[in-house]
């Protein structure tokens, strides 16, 4: 992860690339961790739902297209 940010002052036109403060780096790492955890949970939920759906189709011995026909 880059530890710099680009600041553009719109009044002066000055552009600076500055180092993140220790606090900003810590916040960024915490945000990255939170994002990774949320994404992992989302991926798990999707996989669980897909498995549940596959199990149900297997129990009914029908394909996904056939299930769509039934619901349509």
């Amino acid at each position: 992860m880059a530890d710099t940010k680009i600041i553009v002052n719109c009044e002066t036109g000055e552009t600076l690339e500055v180092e993140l403060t220790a606090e900003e780096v810590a916040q960024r790492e915490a945000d990255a961790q939170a994002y990774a955890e949320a994404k992992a949970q989302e991926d798990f939920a999707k996989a669980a739902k897909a498995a549940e759906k596959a199990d149900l189709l297997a129990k009914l011995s029908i394909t996904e297209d056939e299930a769509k026909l039934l619901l349509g």
Partner: protein
Amino acid sequence: MPDTFIKIASVTVGSGGASSIDFTSIPSTYTDLVVKYSIRTTSANQIDYLKCEFNGSTTSYTERVLYGYGTTVGSASNSGSYDNIINGGANTASTFSNGEIYVPNYAGSNYKSFSSDSVAESNTTSNNMLMLAAELWSNTSAITSIKLSDLSSGTIAQYSTATLYGIKNS
């Protein structure tokens, strides 16, 4: 109908990338603001989300999005301001995502509604996405700064660009 479109500032990310692009000290002399960008990240993701935050505020954002992803279409509501999709580092090399954020009446004292459109582009049959978003920042302050960063805290890649325009209604 706004009839002027003036470039306020523009930035190109240098070698090593950047964690964010911050437009600060935005003058209140325009009617609307527009950010146009061409961005990708260096993350391990195929698609990332570009956060847009005003005045350093990380709260009071809500949004409703419409998207197309491959053959799937859908909509979603989010609380947060990660309304723009961008290519992650794992998507097609050297392909940048173009997008726009439009902020009308940014200097007023009402809550700020804004909109955006964005794409993630790929030369494969997957990881192509388009998103339109209607958003609200429930804050009455005039917008004086805009920060663009990656939701997953990835790095904005070298050669990414962002340009801020001001639009006047006279």
